[in-house]
C-alpha cells in the first residue's frame, strides 16, 4: 500500500516528523515500511518560467531559441521541444541545477543529471525547460503532459507564480512510502487507515473527512431500486444517484494523489471512485443509469455458462457461484470484480449510479480466480470489508461530485443490508482485564495507559469494563487481540527481556533424530558429502530406473497442483535425487564424487489418499562414481557395514545375494546385494547396495561405474543401539589355522563363512579371507580361496585336541559343500 506524506498529513495535520522517523515509527507499531523515496529527489534549482518569445535557431531546423521569464530575469534557452508557444508556463531548471532523469524515460540515474549553461549549435542556452520524465515522473500517470515535449502548466489548474518553486508547483515536494499491510488489517489498505495508525503512533489528533452533502430535492429511490437476492454473498449494497453529470478532468490535487498511488487520472468521475477507494479502502463502481434497464439493481448469482463482456472488452464465462449485478433485463457487472461494457461510463453520461457494497470475501477471491480476473477492487473485497465503511465511502464520493462540480446529488441512499442489526450488538464482547494483559506481556502497564492507547485507536473501554472495537477492526475478537494493540503502541521494545522461569526440562534429540545424526556423521567420515534433493519428481523416473510396468514403486502419491509434470509425484524410491546430483557433478567434470542424502520416501497405504496418512520413510541413500576405478562394490559394502556398526547393528545384519525375483532392475544383475537383519523372520530387506545398471548410468549420463546403497533409517532406528559392552582383552594365546581350498565357482563366500562360523562355535575368534584366485592352474568352474582362522578360549589356553576337533567339524562341513582342500 502506497501513501504520500502529504496525503497522510491531510488527516494528521500536526504530523511533522522526518520521512525516516515516520517510516521507522510506523514499522515499530506494525505498519511495516518497505521503502520510501522523495519525489523531489535530484530536482534542484527548478523554477516556474514563462516563455516570452520563440525564434528559430539560425543553424538548426529542429531547435528554437526561447526567451524565458523566470521572475527575477529573462534567460535564453535553446530547446528542441515542439510543443511550446509564447506564454506557455513551464518548469525550468537553471544552470547549476539538476533533473532526475533523461527525456528518453530510461531508469533514473542515482545522482540525477546536472544542468549547466552552454552553447547549442553556437547559441547560448542558460538552462533547460523540462519534460515530465526529466522531472522523474512516470509519463503514463500524466496524461495531460505531452510525453514528447515540455511539461506545460495548465491554466485550468491555476497557473503558478512566475519565478516560484517549480517542484512545489508540480506537487513533487513530497515523499512516497510503501507499506506492507498484514492480511488482518483490511482497514489499513486505505490512506485513512494508515493515517489513523500514524496519528496513534505519534499521539496526534486524527481528523477524518466529514462529507457534507447538499443534495437536490429529487429522491434517489425515484431513480433506482435495489434488491439483493443472494444475501449470503452481499451483506450490504448502497446506491446513490447523481444527475447533470459533466465529465471533465479532475483537479490537480486529486490527480497528484492518485498518481502518488500509481493510478492514472482519467476523468473527474472515474477519478472520484478511484480516489475514494484509496482514501477509504472501499471499491466503488459507477454505472451509466440510462443503461440500467427498469432502473432496477438486482444482485444475484450468475447461471452456469453465462457469458458476459467486462468493460475491458473481454468476454468472460460465469458459473452459479459468481455474484452478478443485474438490471431488470440483463447482467451489468461482475460483483466486486469488474463492471460490464454494457453499462460503462462514457463521456456522454448524464446520470450516474454509484455503487458501494460489501461482498463475501472468500467468494470474490474464488470467483476472481476461476474467471481469471483479479482487479484492485477484488483484491480489496476478498479481504472482507467493513460494511459500515460502504455508506461513508459513497457519501464521500457524492460530496466530491458536488465539490468538484461534476454533477448534482439526489437525496438519500438506496441500500439493502443483510440481517440488519444494531451496530453494537453484532460486535464481539471482549473483556478488558489489565492484569491478564500484563501477565501475558510480562509488563506492568497501568490500566489508564492501556485505556489511553486504545482510545488513540478509536477503541473504547466502557463502564462495564468491556472493550468496544470500531466496526472497521474486524480483527479484534479476543483479549489477546487487545493485548497486541496495547503492546504495539506501548512499544515491543519496551517489553522486558526475560527467560521462562518455570519447570526445568531436559532437552535432546528424539531417538529417531539421534540415530539419523549418527548415520550422517558416519557417512561423512566415510567420505560422502551430504546432498539435499527434492521430495517430488517426474513419473518418468520409473522408466529411467527400468522399473517394470507393474512395479509397486509406480504407485506414487500425485500432487494435484504440481509446478509441472517434472515435480508431480512424491518419490517412492530415493535414487533419482542422488543419481541426478551425481550426473550434475559428472557433467561438470568433478572427479570421483561421493554423495549421500537423508530424505523421506512417501508410500501410500492406498491411493488416492483419503483418510489414511501415507508412510513417510526416512532413507539414507549413498552413491559414488569412480573414474579411477580404485573403488568398487566392496568399497560400498564396507561403507554399509561401517554405517550399520555405527548404530550397533552390524552383528545382527547380513549382506546377502538378492533372490532372483527380488533383484533390482536398476542395478547390475550380477553386482547387487540385499541388506537384512539375520533374525527377522520375514527376511525383509532393510536396504540394498550394488553397482548401477550400465543402462541406467547411461540414462543419467554418468559415464563411469557408479555404486549406490540405500538403507531404511526407520528400520535402523527401530533396532539401533548406542549401548556398548566390553568383552575383555584376550589373556590366553590364540591358535591360528589356515585353510586353502578349491571351491566350486557358484558357492558364495558368505555361505562358506556362515558354515565355518556355525561349526567354529565360541572358540572361533575370527575368520579372514586372505587369498582369492581364479584362472590359470585352477580347474575350470572352480576358484581358489584361503582363510585364516583364529581360535581362542577366553578362560584357558586352548589345547591342540580342542582345535583339532573343531577343525574336523569345519572340514567335514566343507566337503559337504563339495569343497576340496588344497595342500
Amino acid at each position, binding site marked *: 500500500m502506497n501513501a504520500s506524506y502529504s496525503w497522510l498529513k491531510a488527516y494528521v495535520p500536526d504530523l511533522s516528523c522526518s520521512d525516516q522517523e515516520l517510516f521507522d515509527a510506523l514499522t515499530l507499531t506494525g505498519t511495516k515500511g518497505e521503502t520510501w523515496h522523495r519525489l523531489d529527489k535530484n530536482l534542484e534549482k527548478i523554477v516556474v518560467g514563462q516563455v516570452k518569445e520563440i525564434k528559430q535557431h539560425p543553424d538548426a531546423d529542429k531547435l528554437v531559441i526561447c526567451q524565458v521569464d523566470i521572475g527575477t530575469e529573462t534567460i535564453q534557452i535553446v530547446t528542441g521541444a515542439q510543443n511550446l508557444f509564447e506564454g506557455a508556463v513551464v518548469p525550468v531548471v537553471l544552470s547549476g541545477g539538476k533533473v532526475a532523469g533523461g527525456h528518453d524515460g530510461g531508469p533514473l540515474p542515482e545522482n540525477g543529471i546536472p544542468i549547466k549553461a552552454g552553447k547549442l549549435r553556437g547559441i547560448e542556452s542558460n538552462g533547460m525547460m523540462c519534460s515530465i520524465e526529466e522531472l522523474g515522473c512516470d509519463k503514463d500517470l500524466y496524461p495531460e503532459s505531452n510525453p514528447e515535449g515540455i511539461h506545460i502548466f495548465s491554466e485550468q489548474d491555476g497557473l503558478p507564480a512566475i519565478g516560484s518553486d517549480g517542484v512545489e508547483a508540480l506537487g513533487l515536494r513530497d515523499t512516497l512510502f510503501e507499506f506492507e499491510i498484514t492480511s488482518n488489517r483490511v482497514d489499513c489498505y486505505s490512506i485513512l487507515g494508515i493515517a489513523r495508525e500514524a496519528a496513534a503512533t505519534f499521539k496526534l489528533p486524527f481528523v477524518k473527512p466529514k462529507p457534507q452533502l447538499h443534495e437536490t430535492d429529487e429522491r434517489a429511490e425515484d431513480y433506482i431500486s435495489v434488491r439483493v437476492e443472494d444475501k449470503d454473498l452481499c451483506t450490504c449494497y448502497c446506491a446513490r444517484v447523481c444527475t447533470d453529470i459533466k465529465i471533465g478532468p479532475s483537479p490537480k490535487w486529486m490527480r497528484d494523489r492518485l498518481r502518488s498511488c500509481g493510478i492514472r487520472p482519467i476523468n473527474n468521475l472515474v477519478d472520484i471512485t478511484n480516489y475514494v477507494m484509496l482514501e477509504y479502502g472501499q471499491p466503488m463502481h459507477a454505472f451509466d443509469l440510462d443503461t440500467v434497464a427498469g432502473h432496477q439493481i438486482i444482485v444475484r448469482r450468475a447461471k452456469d455458462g453465462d457469458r458476459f463482456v467486462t468493460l475491458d472488452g473481454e468476454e468472460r464465462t460465469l458459473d452459479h457461484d459468481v455474484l452478478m449485478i443485474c438490471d431488470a433485463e440483463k447482467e451489468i457487472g461482475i460483483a466486486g470484480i469488474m463492471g460490464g461494457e454494457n453499462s460503462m461510463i462514457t463521456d456522454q453520461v448524464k446520470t450516474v449510479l454509484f455503487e458501494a457494497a460489501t461482498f463475501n470475501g472468500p467468494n470474490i477471491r474464488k470467483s476472481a480466480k476461476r474467471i481469471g480476473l483479479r482487479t484492485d477492487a477484488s483484491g480489496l473485497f476478498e479481504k472482507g470489508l467493513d460494511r459500515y465503511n460502504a455508506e461513508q465511502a459513497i457519501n464521500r464520493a457524492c460530496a466530491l461530485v458536488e465539490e468538484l462540480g461534476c454533477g448534482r446529488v439526489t437525496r438519500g441512499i438506496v441500500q439493502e443490508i443483510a440481517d440488519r442489526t444494531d451496530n453494537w450488538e453484532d460486535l464481539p464482547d471482549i473483556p478488558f482485564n489489565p492484569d491478564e494483559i500484563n501477565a501475558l506481556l510480562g509488563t506492568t502497564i497501568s490500566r489508564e495507559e492501556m485505556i489511553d492507547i486504545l482510545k488513540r485507536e478509536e477503541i473504547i473501554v466502557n463502564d462495564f469494563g468491556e472493550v468496544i472495537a470500531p466496526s472497521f477492526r474486524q480483527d479484534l475478537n479476543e483479549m489477546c487481540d487487545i*493485548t497486541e494493540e496495547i503492546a504495539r503502541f506501548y512499544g515491543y521494545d519496551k517489553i522486558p527481556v526475560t527467560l521462562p522461569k518455570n519447570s526445568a526440562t531436559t532437552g535432546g534429540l528424539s531417538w529417531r533424530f539421534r540415530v539419523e545424526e549418527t548415520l550422517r556423521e558416519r557417512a561423512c567420515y566415510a567420505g560422502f558429502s551430504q546432498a539435499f534433493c527434492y521430495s517430488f519428481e517426474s513419473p518418468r523416473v520409473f522408466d529411467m530406473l527400468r522399473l517394470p510396468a507393474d512395479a509397486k514403486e509406480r504407485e506414487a502419491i500425485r500432487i494435484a497442483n504440481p509446478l509441472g509434470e517434472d515435480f508431480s509425484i512424491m518419490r517412492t524410491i530415493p535414487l533419482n535425487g542422488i543419481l541426478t546430483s551425481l550426473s550434475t557433478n559428472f557433467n561438470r567434470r568433478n572427479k570421483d564424487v561421493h554423495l549421500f542424502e537423508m530424505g523421506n520416501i512417501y508410500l501410500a497405504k492406498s491411493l*488416492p489418499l483419503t483418510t489414511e496418512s501415507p508412510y513417510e520413510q526416512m532413507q539414507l541413500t549413498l552413491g559414488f562414481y569412480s573414474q579411477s576405478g580404485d573403488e568398487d562394490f566392496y568399497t560400498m559394502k564396507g561403507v554399509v557395514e561401517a554405517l550399520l556398526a555405527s548404530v550397533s547393528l552390524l552383528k545382527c545384519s547380513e549382506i546377502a545375494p538378492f533372490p532372483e525375483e527380488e533383484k533390482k532392475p536398476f542395478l547390475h544383475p550380477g553386482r547387487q546385494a540385499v541388506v537384512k537383519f539375520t533374525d527377522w523372520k520375514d527376511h525383509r530387506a532393510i536396504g540394498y547396495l550394488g553397482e548401477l545398471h550400465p543402462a541406467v548410468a547411461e540414462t543419467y549420463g554418468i559415464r563411469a561405474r557408479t555404486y549406490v546403497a540405500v538403507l531404511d533409517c526407520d528400520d535402523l532406528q527401530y533396532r539401533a543401539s548406542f549401548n556398548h559392552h566390553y568383552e575383555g582383552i584376550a589373556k590366553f594365546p590364540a591358535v591360528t589355522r589356515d585353510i586353502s581350498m578349491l571351491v566350486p565357482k557358484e558357492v558364495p563366500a558368505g555361505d562358506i563363512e556362515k558354515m565355518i562360523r556355525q561349526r567354529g562355535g565360541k572358540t572361533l575368534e575370527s575368520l579372514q579371507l586372505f587369498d582369492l584366485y581364479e584362472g590359470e592352474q585352477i580347474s575350470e568352474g572352480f576358484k581358489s580361496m584361503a582363510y585364516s582362522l583364529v581360535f581362542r578360549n577366553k578362560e584357558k589356553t586352548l589345547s591342540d585336541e580342542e582345535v583339532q576337533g573343531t577343525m574336523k567339524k569345519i572340514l567335514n562341513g566343507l566337503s559337504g559343500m563339495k569343497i576340496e582342500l588344497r595342500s
Partner: protein
Amino acid sequence: MINETLDEIRKKALEAIGQASDPDRLNDIRVSVLGKKGELTGILKSMKDVAPEDRPRIGQLVNDTRAEIEKVLDEQKQKFEAAILDAKLKSEAIDVTLPSKPLPVGHKHPNTIALEEVERIFIGMGYEVVGGPEIERDYYNFKALNIPDDHPARDEQDTFYISGQFLLRTQTSSAQVHEMEKGKLPIKMISPGRVFRADEVDATHSPSFHQVEGLVIDENITFADLKGTLAEFSKKLFGELTETKFRPHHFPFTEPSAEMDVSCFKCGGKGCRFCKGSGWIEILGCGMVHPNVLRMSGIDSKKYKGFAFGVGLERIALLKYEIDDMRLLYENDIRFLEQF
C-alpha cells in the same frame, strides 16, 4: 714401576681414543685395554707379584685408571652416536610444503550445519527436538492453527494439494499441533523439517525448503520470555554482540505476533550492502500462541500460555555462510559442498 706402567697404559689409551674416527675403533680400544686379554686386565693378573701390603693401593690405582678410560670411551661413543643420528636425521629431511595426503572426509550440507547449530542452542536451553509428517492433513496445517477454510492466509501460502484432506505441509507449525495433542505439559520443543510451497525455483525461492518451529507452553509464559529466549538464541547463533528488534506482525496462530530482526552481523548494524543499508536483517516470525490454537488442541488456555516461533533454515544458511543463490543448496555440486 707399576705406577709407571699404569700411567703409560692410560696415556696410550686416551691418545688412541682421541684419534679414533669411528665407534668400531673405540670398541677395538676397549677390547685391547679393558678386555679379558687387555693390558689393564694383565696388570690385575700380575697383582700376585705385588707385595700384600701394597695390593689395596695398587688395586685402587688400577680401578681408577680403568674407570677413567671407560668414562672417556663412553663419552666418545656417545659423541659418535649423536653424530651418526644427526647425519641420519639430516639426510631424512623432507619438504614439508609438499601437498598433504588428504583424509577423504565428506562434508555436511550447509542446511545441516545450520540446523545442528540451532539444535545445539535450543537443546542447551532444555528443548526437545521432534519431527512431524510432511504429507499433512488440512487440519494440522491450517485449521488447528486458527486458519479456517476461506482464510486469506491459505492463498498467501501457495499450497500443494494431494487429495482429500491431504496436502504438503506449508509450515512446520503443524508439528506444534501434534505435540500439543500428546497432552504432555509443559512443552518445550523445536521441530525442524521440510516444508513445501508452490514457488518456482529462483535465486531466493525453492518449492521445498526447511523450517525450524519452536513451541513453549507452560504456566506464566510471557511475551518477555519470548523476547528473552530469541535474543539469547540470536546471540548464540550470530555472536554475542547481536541485538534483536521485535516488530508487530500478523500470524493467525499467534497473538500478539512479531517479526524479529537481528543487527547485521556483517556491519554490526551500521548499514551495509548485506543488510541493504538498514543495519537489520529479518530472521524469523514469532508470537504468543493464540488461545484458539491452545483450545483446539485441548489445552486450558486460561491456565497455560505459550510462545511459538518459526525460522527458515535456508535463510539462516544463506545469511550465515553468505551463499548468494538458493539453487546452490539443491544442485549438490561437490565444489560447493566441499566448502562446508
